[in-house]
């Protein structure tokens, strides 16, 4: 299994705004001796359109995604919501197109979120990382409720040398991102992320870690505006860190 070549599915937000998260994933896979490739034609899984109701546009993005990743052995993504999109929305989009549906399901069955792949598929919980500090973990909705991935990231964090995981209160309550919701209903979204941040601060952890950059971008954006010094890290960044101490 560890020799299987991983095709990196780099969420569009990671690709454009947080490329260091994608690089951290590569560092991690290199250290674990897992070969990986990056299909260069990948763009976006279609989630923004789907969540806003634009299913025709989302279906075209899905067609593109399937064409790009169809020949991949296994597809790994640093975002729970994108994997949720591929696994749960694609079949819905192609419900009336049997041929596409079969292709979509075949791709979906080989698509995993990072922590899910490491723990469930490879049976790894210690990846040789170290991080000296305290962190708290935010459960992203589509990852935890949608894909049922709750323990895997925690197991990986506990396997990191020097790291102390402090659970925050209501770690699985939505951070208020919700895609275009955050822009269309900013007052509600902000009230929600404020509660999330209050819980992060109350945990006393030096950093908040998550598995979905969309939520982390929302939390980071509000932390920065509030002038709070808590660090925001993607799980891949923590797992990539080997002996450099806290931080990215």
């Amino acid at each position, binding site marked *: 299994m560890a020799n299987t070549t991983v095709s990196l599915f*780099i969420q569009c937000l*990671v*690709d*454009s*705004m*947080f*490329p260091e998260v*994608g*690089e951290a994933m*590569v560092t991690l896979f290199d250290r674990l001796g897992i070969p990986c490739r*990056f299909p*260069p*034609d*990948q*763009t*976006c899984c*279609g989630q*923004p*359109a*789907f*969540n*806003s*109701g*634009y*299913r*025709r*546009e989302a279906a*075209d*993005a899905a*067609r*593109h995604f399937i064409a790009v990743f169809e020949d991949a052995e296994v597809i790994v993504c640093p975002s729970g919501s994108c994997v949720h999109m591929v696994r749960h929305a694609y079949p819905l989009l192609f419900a009336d197109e049997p041929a596409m549906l079969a292709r979509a399901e075949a791709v979906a069955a080989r698509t995993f979120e990072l922590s899910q792949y490491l723990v469930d598929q490879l049976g790894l919980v210690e990846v040789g990382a170290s991080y000296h500090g305290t962190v708290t973990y935010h459960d992203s*909705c589509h990852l935890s*409720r949608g894909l049922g991935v709750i323990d895997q990231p925690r197991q990986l964090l506990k396997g990191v040398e020097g790291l102390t995981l402090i659970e925050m209160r209501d770690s699985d*309550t*939505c951070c*208020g*991102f*919700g895609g*275009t*919701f*955050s*822009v*269309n*209903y*900013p*007052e*509600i*979204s*902000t*009230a*929600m*992320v404020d*509660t999330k941040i209050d819980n992060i601060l109350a945990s006393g952890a030096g950093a908040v870690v998550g598995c979905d950059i969309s939520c982390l*971008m*929302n939390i*980071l*954006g*509000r932390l*920065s*505006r509030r002038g709070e010094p808590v660090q925001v890290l993607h799980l891949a960044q923590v797992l990539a860190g080997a002996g450099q101490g806290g931080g990215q």
Partner: protein
Amino acid sequence: MNRPSQSNYTREAIKGIASTTLQTNLRSFQERLGQGAMRMWVELADPEKRRRVKASRMRTLDHLDIILASLAEKVRARGGRVYFAETAQDASDYILAVARKNQVKRVVKGKSMTSIEIGVDPVLEAAGIEVVETDLGEYIVQLAGEPPSHIIAPCIHLDRRQIGRLFADQLGIDYSEDPPTLTRAARHALREKLLSAEMGLTGCNLACAETGQISLVSNEGNIRMATTMPPVHVAVMGMERVVATMAEHRETLQLLTRGAVLQKISTYVSFVGGPADTPGETREFHLVIVDNGRSKILADPEFREVLACIRCGACLNICPVYGKIGGHAYASAYCGPIGAVVSPLLEGINKHADLCKGETLCGACKEVCPVENDLPRMLSALRHKLAYGSDQWDTRQMNPAEAFAFRLWRHLVTRPALYRAGLRLAALLQRPFIGKNRMISRMVGPAAGWTDSRDLPPIARQSFAARWRQKHPPTPDVAKKTAENSGEEKV
């Protein structure tokens, strides 16, 4: 944060967020009931129960016409009268006619959302009939002249000081903020109304087709009085509120009281099976079965599931959006996640477009729902109607500009070279907005929705794709293919 064109939803949401009372009450309510329900489902001795009840709800919906006919037949056999109301207006007209015929001057109500949906109170009041809510919470909001803001805790937006002042003003008692004193005052006032009313008007939690009886749950005992003391009792039910058999009734009721307040059974369960047999007195029982748009929901496989709802209110107790904004923002008889799905379907998708769009689809409601109603799926389906318009649902396309933007987006994401070029262009355009902290703190147009309260990390100078390419120069034949498609900078 005050942008010019705020919708009613946003305006009411802002008010809710600003109300300390609402925030404190919602938080403790959600912690106790919402999170309590989540734990309860995990610990439920019979984990299959929820799935069984859901299956029986869906089965009932599949045969709704037959089951309703048998309910009506059984109720009539017990001496009750049944009226099938196609619209809200029909239902209200019928209830008014019953009141007139019986020379009713005062109606006492048991808590009923369907009665709010059909708007019967104003109809009765316009005819000079006094309408009094007897559920304590409903009574309080009625005195305050406000709509309820939670399915089972209608006055959750008020604190005891506000209620104390309200009672002092409206009931003429001395100001007090002591809950037992206030409850006693309400009980005293309500008892008088209950004793003198000529008609009781209630909802119906469940109706059982097998036995021809309806059941009502309450913890205050007011329902029992409202259904038995006045000579005329009218119960209003949405036509989906029926179960086929007593066995199904038992399990459904168990989930209802658990979902609502974590109770194995409520303090009172009143079974009403036709008019009481009182010598020397004429008593009437009327069951008004309301369609008001439900047939249309039933006919659409995408939305039929919402009729499986047992109106327990659990989804309100977990929803992080409702937990911030409270019930008034929904501007409808039904609030919270269930309201966000059912109100647009009953009253118009365009009218309630904000309810369709104003959630994060986090999925907590589905998880807590005793019958596992997939509300996020249905919200997404409602957005689909708004995206393109729908003849079937009489829905206009909501936002042509947004639709255009997504068509443009499609053009880009299916053409990698163009997509990459677009990203590079965006990276250039954003430059003047990047501040010293390497964050964007001010944007214009709709994007200001983000930066009014949050910073935004900029688009990176070099995307992951570009960095990868730099480290892994493609082999010649792959290079040719990729260069054609990706338009990646050669660095």
